[in-house]
């Protein structure tokens, strides 16, 4: 099944109570944060705590991501070294401005994979786009490395750079969201929407999550476990969508058995993208806990 990143849960890297249990909330990914949630004087402590936890904790099937400190900080290099050696799956680079930033991270990761005895290419990358230049460079960033699996919007820094603030309608993020989804789709990587910071406002969160899904985002970053089931509910297919997807897959399978080159369903032609989308939807339904194998 394809990797899902509907929910990427941020966990403060210097909080042992949260780091040890991060896998129990059912998010698709955990993002251990070494950046904004950690005070400068505690960067070393957070790095060692996440390193030690990764070395000894079974996080199950949840994808393990780390947000390292930015390339221009004194902590960046050691963050990356510790995390590659600890077996991290994905490194999220904050404040990515252009493809050169990803190239620099990739070079470091490649060298560390060799010295740490990890298979080449096993560490994947994610870029957080947080400023206007980053948004304008979205496609170049998204295509800058074979390791790159997703680009993400980070709205708080973005709105500050744009001399505006976040609103409930999100109009100030419309251009950035659109460009990120376009770039991600053109590059064949995932698009991850920004966090919703008002943890008490479930309705506002749901509204934003629905908008993100409709725009084509693959998921959102979240800052509290309470947002995870809400998000998965938004991204779950409807029963009708699932029924239709299963019929598409069945029609494709039948056409293959019969050696037919052209597949049709209800008088309409079905081509490869429609079949791929149907398979993706069935995978998503399964991950969402829906009963996929039921006969109609």
């Amino acid at each position, binding site marked *: 099944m394809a990797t899902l990143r509907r929910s990427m849960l941020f966990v403060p890297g210097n909080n*042992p*109570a949260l780091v*040890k249990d991060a896998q129990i909330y059912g998010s698709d990914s955990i993002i251990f944060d070494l950046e904004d949630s950690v005070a400068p004087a505690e960067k*070393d*402590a957070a*790095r*060692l*705590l996440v*390193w*030690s*936890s990764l*070395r*000894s*904790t079974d996080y199950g099937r949840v994808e393990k991501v780390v947000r390292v400190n930015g390339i221009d900080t004194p902590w960046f290099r*050691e963050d990356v*070294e*510790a995390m590659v*050696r600890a077996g991290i799956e994905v490194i999220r680079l904050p404040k990515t401005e252009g493809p050169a930033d990803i190239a620099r991270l990739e070079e470091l990761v490649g060298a560390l994979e060799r*010295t740490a005895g990890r298979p080449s290419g096993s560490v994947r990358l994610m870029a957080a786009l947080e400023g206007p230049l980053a948004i304008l460079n979205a496609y170049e960033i998204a295509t800058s490395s074979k390791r790159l699996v997703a680009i993400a919007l980070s709205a708080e820094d973005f709105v500050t750079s744009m001399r505006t603030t976040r609103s409930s309608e999100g109009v100030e993020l419309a251009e950035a969201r659109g460009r990120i989804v376009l770039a991600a789709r053109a590059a064949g990587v995932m698009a991850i929407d920004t966090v919703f910071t008002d943890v008490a406002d479930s309705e506002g969160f749901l509204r934003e999550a629905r908008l993100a899904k409709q725009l084509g985002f693959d998921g959102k970053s979240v800052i509290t476990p309470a947002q995870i089931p809400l998000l998965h509910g938004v991204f779950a297919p409807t029963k009708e969508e699932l029924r239709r997807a299963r019929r598409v897959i069945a029609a494709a399978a039948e056409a293959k058995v019969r050696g037919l080159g052209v597949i049709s369903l209800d008088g309409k032609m079905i081509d490869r993208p429609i079949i791929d989308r149907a398979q993706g939807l069935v995978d998503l339904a399964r991950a969402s806990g829906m009963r996929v194998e039921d006969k109609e």
Partner: protein
Amino acid sequence: MEIIKTGVAGTLESCDASVSVEEHGLLELVIESADSRFAPRVREAALAALAELGVRAARVTVREKSALDCTIRARVMTACLRAAGLEKAPWEALK
């Protein structure tokens, strides 16, 4: 690893450990555990971390609040590196 000053790390929050490492002629380890039944396990985790860093002489105090072994290990290592005045961990040597 040579301890040249006092280094502290961690907190007394639940699931955490507060660790202090000071200069001392011998290796002395004091454990204050939230539950005394776990003190031997905490001692073992702390000693393993000290051995991994090659700390042979220091007074180490660990006050823990139901911390996992991996947390004890991280906090002891952080306090030792701070007490040794080192900014970089010897990642290649760590298991």
